[in-house]
């Protein structure tokens, strides 16, 4: 019957907007909580300053580009 399509549309609206709002409202809470916890934890432990991060595999990480960028940075600092 014709009305099924309308019903489906209304269902979609109802459950769809419901889910979107529920999810994002929950995310507001989770994000706020996360920021609190993370900032407390990290200030305390200083996040194991990420080690000297031996940057692994590729030794020759584009030294040419590095030079270019270095030059540009030098330039900016002048």
């Amino acid at each position, binding site marked *: 019957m*014709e*009305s099924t*399509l*309308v019903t*489906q*549309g*209304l*269902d*979609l*609206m109802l*459950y*769809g*907007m419901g*889910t*979107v*709002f529920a*999810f*994002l*409202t*929950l*995310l*507001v809470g*989770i*994000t*706020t909580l*996360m*920021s609190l916890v*993370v*900032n407390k*934890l*990290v200030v305390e432990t200083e*996040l194991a300053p*990420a080690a000297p*991060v031996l*940057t692994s595999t590729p030794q020759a*990480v584009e030294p040419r580009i590095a030079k270019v960028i270095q030059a540009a940075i030098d330039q900016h600092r002048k």
Partner: protein
Amino acid sequence: MENLISLWASSGLAQMQLGQMIMMTVGLVLLFLAISKGFEPLLLVPIGFGTILVNIPGAGFEAAPIYDAMGHMESPGGLLYYIYHAGIETGLFPLIIFMGVGSMTDFGPLLANPKTLLLGAAAQVGIFTTVIGAVALGHFGILDFTIREAASIGIIGGADGPTAIFVTSKLAPDLLGAIAVAAYSYMALVPIIQPPIMRALTTPAEREIKMEQLRPVTKAERIVFPLALLVLVAFLLPDAAPLLGMFCFGNLMRECGVVNRLSDTTQNALINIVTIFLGLGVGSKMSAEKFLNPETMGILALGAVAFCIGTASGVLMAKLMNTMAKHKVNPLIGAAGVSAVPMAARVANKVGLDANPQNFLLMHAMGPNVAGVIGSAVAAGVMINLVSGM
């Protein structure tokens, strides 16, 4: 003589149909809008060009390959055939684009003011209202949309290109051309569509509200946020996991600071390559029989409505929040909740400056702006789930 006939018979002039000529003109118009008017050129240049290519009679851009009984190829497929089936039908291209967008997204403003997520939620009202609109057009016999098509049309209101393409390629691939063109065109028209609505729904005093400066956001928060979002999606809404998972992956690569090589490539070479092919592939769905029909006019009209309602909902939600919260938000930033990053945020900023030349809203508007991306990805997940079961 036979050869001359063969050459003539295979020429475009002999084979061209009116529909193809019109579609080639549509392609040229898209290119004109993209190049001369600056309408989302990164997508509309490839889409417009793809539209022309696929409508060249006899060029075979979307021909399927032909294999003999032994499985050997007798004649290869066309370029757009391969692009569409490998990258769009499978959903790979929109997902890779989403990874790239994630690696370009700065969640800082959102983290500094998480409640702007609600503005990103409110703006999705446009999506679902439009679904109702499409369904109503069907109910009254004006146009004939299935629920799958109605859902795909609604997603135009998400103001997020890859999300629209991802949903439509799953639910209503025949509408892909029209929906993608509508989505990107309206995103480009945000500076024209939104300001009147924003002004109509706000008082000058509201538009002058100054928001307090955003707190600085730590590196650790930035790293943990995409993971927290991912876990929440995993637990509550797996249907949104493909889009949001790749988005979070890109963002984590950006923020974690230890894979800058990968993040750079994701933001540049990779997203550029995929953008070119995504656009051409979308163009391959711009054939006369799929585009030149009353439904396309309906899609364009409904898409515009979706944008307007989304904009209004965002602004009204901000006003609603102000009735309850201590720290007022400028309701203009609600309009940025439709996504269309970063255009909608710039529009909010500009309308704010018109009201008060000292009132810089750009960073405040970036929060709802990226929230709108999350919001429409969530809406996409819900719709794919519900519609598939209907």
